[in-house]
């Protein structure tokens, strides 16, 4: 199937990447080439083959339920492009969200 400009626009929106209109067509071409190339995977017989979910065969290690982190709002907000020092404390600022 051909990956058209509409699909690229939809995917770009899902990925929240602004793509200029004039880039849509060439990008569709590039992505279509890649997608066509990876489609050769369809040739592999994968009946009764489990998908790989973990590369290493090992048991997951579970954390103890104990407080061992946090308490440093300055460290987590220190790099924020719009860090807000509100009387209540430190927030991240973003354009108004309308629900």
């Amino acid at each position, binding site marked *: 199937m051909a990956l058209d400009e509409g699909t690229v626009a939809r995917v770009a929106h*899902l990925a929240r990447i602004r793509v200029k209109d004039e880039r849509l067509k060439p990008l569709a071409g590039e992505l279509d080439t890649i997608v066509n190339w990876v489609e050769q995977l369809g040739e592999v017989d994968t009946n009764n083959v489990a998908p790989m979910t973990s590369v290493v065969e090992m048991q*997951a290690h579970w954390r103890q*339920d104990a*407080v061992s982190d*946090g308490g440093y709002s300055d460290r*987590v907000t220190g790099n924020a492009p719009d860090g807000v020092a509100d009387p209540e*404390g430190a927030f991240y600022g973003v*354009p108004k969200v309308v*629900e």
Partner: protein
Amino acid sequence: MSKLIKGKTGEWEVVIGVETHAQVSSVSKLFSGSPTAFGAAPNSQVSLVDAAMPGMLPVVNGEAVRQAVRTGLALNAEINKHSVFARKNYFYPDLPQGYQISQYEEPIVGEGEIEVELEDGSTRTIGIERLHMEQDAGKSVHDRHPGKSYIDLNRAGVPLMEIVSKPDMRSAEEASAYVGKIRSILRAIGSCDGNMQEGSMRADINISVRKPGEELGIRAEVKNVNSLRFIRQAVEVEAKRQIRLLESGGTMVQETRLFDPDKGETRSMRSKEDAHDYRYFPDPDLLPVVFDDAFVAECKASLPELPDTRKARYVEAGVSADNATFIAGEQDHIHFFETLLAAGIDAKQAADFYTSEFLGRLNKADISIADAKVNAEALAGLLALVKDNTISGKIAKDVLDDMLESGEPAKAIVEAKGLVQITDSSAIEALVDQVIADNPNQVESYKANPKAIGWFVGQVMKASQGKANPGQVNQLLKQKLDG
């Protein structure tokens, strides 16, 4: 008992499924060691992992796994010894990773079922579709700046269990009873504190309507309904809205709606022109959650008595079914009731006194159990005085009023006010004789109508200022009047 709703074009059936989000009662987050406590300063309970700093990785909290398994067992559900965390991808500022770690195709708990009791005494079995673990999102604050929203990530990463019901409910009452039952089970086993006001338990209600026998209709999801009362109201108004819409020729759209309890309506939350495509895939930062039968057995052994078993035990002991369901459904009630039982109070008497006298007074005065000046031990002290005939049941009610007012123990009040019951037969006999002698006309009418003995009992009790033992009064009166 038809639950159908009458519309202009005939009867409609409402079909309800519920997704309950219950915060696991853990001290730390699902994938990091920052705290989960409620009400801290913004972004003060946020680790580098919760803030999704570059290169940060999740490590699962074993307590969340254990509580999910215990909850699954309490819901009579299938436990999956191999489950997988998956990423649900979408952009939102309170979702720092750009994805929520949840479980999708392979949840930790599969199908189960619970029984819910309805007001008419009947029960309904409601199917559980699944339970999975997931992380909560942060919070957007919209009211502190005219042009901006502020983001607080304190809740980001808090462990949740999402319990998904089958679309098995058919009325507002059933939906609310179901959530109430889930809540009492979670609280009984301690996997969630069930506090709907603080948001540690939230329900999303999926509602659709159809003509009986027809295919399922298109549903609306009503979000974050945070009390049992609101669940009832939300279902009622949403079902009515849908019926009105369909009967006036409209078509339903699948959408998310918000219940506004002030206006008593639901309204569309966000138009979904932007159809979600969550692109779930197994989280490569986490290994599958795997455990053995021994772990499940350990979880099972740790479960306390569940509400259904407890209720049955109470009914067996003589408690009415209504009271047994009521008490067994709530940890505070259980604590009071079990304290009364332990003090040797008769089960039926304890249940009746607790529900109608004690809670009745609290409700009237709008006092919570936690704020009442009478605790379980004090109440047991009061009923012990009735049990050993120190005071009558009637006096006990007056003493309870006093206790709730002053916080003094029952015994002190009874002694201070001289309320000790008169059990000396000669003293009672004197009062009985006096009343008979003073009321010859009444004695005559008693002969015609033996039920009038009640009037004599009342008079004797009055004369004793309520202190005479009513049993003895009755007995002596009968003797004298019949003799």
